C-alpha cells in the first residue's frame, strides 16, 4: 500500500472516530410525579437532585418488582433494563422478583389486555384480598411502575453536488420519555416517581464518501435522570 493512501485512510478513520460518535446537544426536563415525602431542604442542587431528595427511602430487601406500564415498554426492554441496572448498582442487597414471576403469579391480572394503565387503578386492583394474599406469598412490598416511549421523529434531508464534489445533510428530531413510579403494595399508595423527557437533533453529513454523524443521546439522558432518582431511593433504604 502506498504511504500516501495509508495516510489518507488513517485521516478518514481518525475523523470518523472523532466525529462519528459525537453527542449532539439535548434538552432534558425532569419532573417529580405523585405524592412526595417531605425532606430537609437542600440548596445548590440541580432540579433533578432536589427531586431525588424528596423520594422516600425504599427498603429493597423487602422485595420489589419492575412492572412495565404497557406491553411495548416490556418488549422493548430498554426502559426496564435501565431502571434495573441503576437499582442493582445502588442497592446490591435489594431483592428483585423477575417480572415474569410476578405476571405468572398474578395471572390473569397483569396481562397486556387486562393490566390497568393508570396507577390508581393498578393500586386498587392490587389491594384486592386475593391479590394481596398472593403478593404476600411472593414476598414483595414494592413495585416500580415503568413507562416510556420514543417521541415523534421527523427527518429532513438536503443535498447537492457542485464541481468540488457532493454533500448530503440529514437531520432528525429525536426524543425519549421515561417515567418510573414507586408503589408501596403494603400501604396501597404511590410514593412518588420521576418523569423525564429529552429532545434533541441527530444529524448526519456526507462529504464525498466521509460520513460525519452527530447523535442526540436522548434515551441515555432520560435513563440516567430517572434511573438515578429511583436508585437513590433504594440506596437510602439500604443505608438505614
Amino acid at each position: 500500500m502506498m504511504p500516501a493512501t495509508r495516510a489518507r485512510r488513517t485521516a478518514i478513520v481518525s475523523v470518523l472516530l472523532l466525529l462519528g460518535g459525537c453527542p449532539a446537544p439535548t434538552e432534558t426536563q425532569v419532573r417529580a410525579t405523585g405524592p412526595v415525602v417531605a425532606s430537609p431542604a437542600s440548596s445548590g442542587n440541580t432540579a433533578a437532585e432536589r427531586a431525588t431528595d424528596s423520594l422516600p427511602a425504599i427498603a429493597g430487601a423487602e422485595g420489589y418488582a419492575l412492572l412495565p406500564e404497557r406491553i411495548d415498554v416490556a418488549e422493548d426492554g430498554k426502559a426496564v433494563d435501565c431502571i434495573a441496572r441503576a437499582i442493582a448498582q445502588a442497592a446490591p442487597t435489594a431483592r428483585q422478583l423477575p417480572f415474569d414471576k410476578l405476571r405468572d403469579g398474578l395471572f390473569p391480572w397483569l396481562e397486556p389486555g387486562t393490566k390497568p394503565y393508570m396507577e390508581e387503578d393498578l393500586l386498587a386492583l392490587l389491594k384486592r384480598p386475593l391479590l394481596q394474599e398472593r403478593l404476600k406469598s411472593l414476598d414483595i412490598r414494592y413495585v416500580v411502575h415503568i413507562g416510556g416511549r420514543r417521541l415523534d421523529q421527523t427527518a429532513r434531508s438536503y443535498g447537492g453536488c457542485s464541481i468540488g464534489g457532493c454533500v448530503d445533510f440529514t437531520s432528525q428530531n429525536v426524543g425519549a420519555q421515561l417515567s418510573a413510579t414507586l408503589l408501596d403494595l403494603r400501604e396501597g399508595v404511590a410514593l412518588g416517581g420521576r418523569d423525564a423527557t429529552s429532545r434533541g437533533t441527530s444529524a448526519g453529513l456526507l462529504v464525498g464518501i466521509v460520513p460525519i454523524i452527530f447523535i442526540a443521546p436522548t434515551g441515555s439522558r432520560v435513563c440516567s435522570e430517572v434511573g438515578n432518582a429511583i436508585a437513590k431511593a433504594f440506596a437510602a433504604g439500604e443505608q438505614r
Partner: protein
Amino acid sequence: MRAAPPPLPEPLFDPLPITVAVWYAPELGEHRATGTRSKGRPNGDQIVTHYDVQSGDAHLTVLRRMISAAFRHVKPLSSEPGGPIDDPTVDLIAMPTVAWVEYGAGATVRYRISLILPDGEHFTNIFVSGSASESVPEQRWLEVAMRDAAAQILVRLTTNEKLEKWLAERHRAAAPDRRRNS
C-alpha cells in the same frame, strides 16, 4: 404448522358461584388459520408467504382451562343445545367459539363466549381479543395472543354488567332461603 397452547399459570381467580354447561363445537378443535401475508412493496422486493396454522387443539385447551377456572361447576355437554336443557342444576350454558384469527404482522385471536339461559334464551356474548406484535418471534405469535385472550376471558366475566347484575339478583333472591335454612 401446528400451534401449541400457551403455558398458562394457575389463574388467581374466584370462580363465579354458578354451574355452567359447556358446548365445545367439533369445528373448534379443527380450527386452522390460513392465508397469505406479504412484506415489502408490491412493485419492489415483495415477499409473499402462505401460512397454514392448525390451531384448533391449542384454542380448545385454552378455552377449557379458562372456562373451568371461571365457574364453580362446569358440565360438558355431549350435544349442541338447541333449546331448553333439562338439568335443574345448570344456571347458564356457555358456547365458546373462535371468532377469528389474524396472522400477518403479528397475530390477533378473537374468542366469543355466548352465554345462554337454561330455557334456551340468549343471555349475552363476551368478546375478547388477544394480540402479539411483530416484535415477538413469529413462532410465538399465536401463543402470546392466546395467553392475552385467555386472561381477558376471566377478567371480562367479572366486568360484564349484565352478568354482574344477574349474579347479584340471584344472590339477593337466594338470601331469604339462606336465612330460612339457617
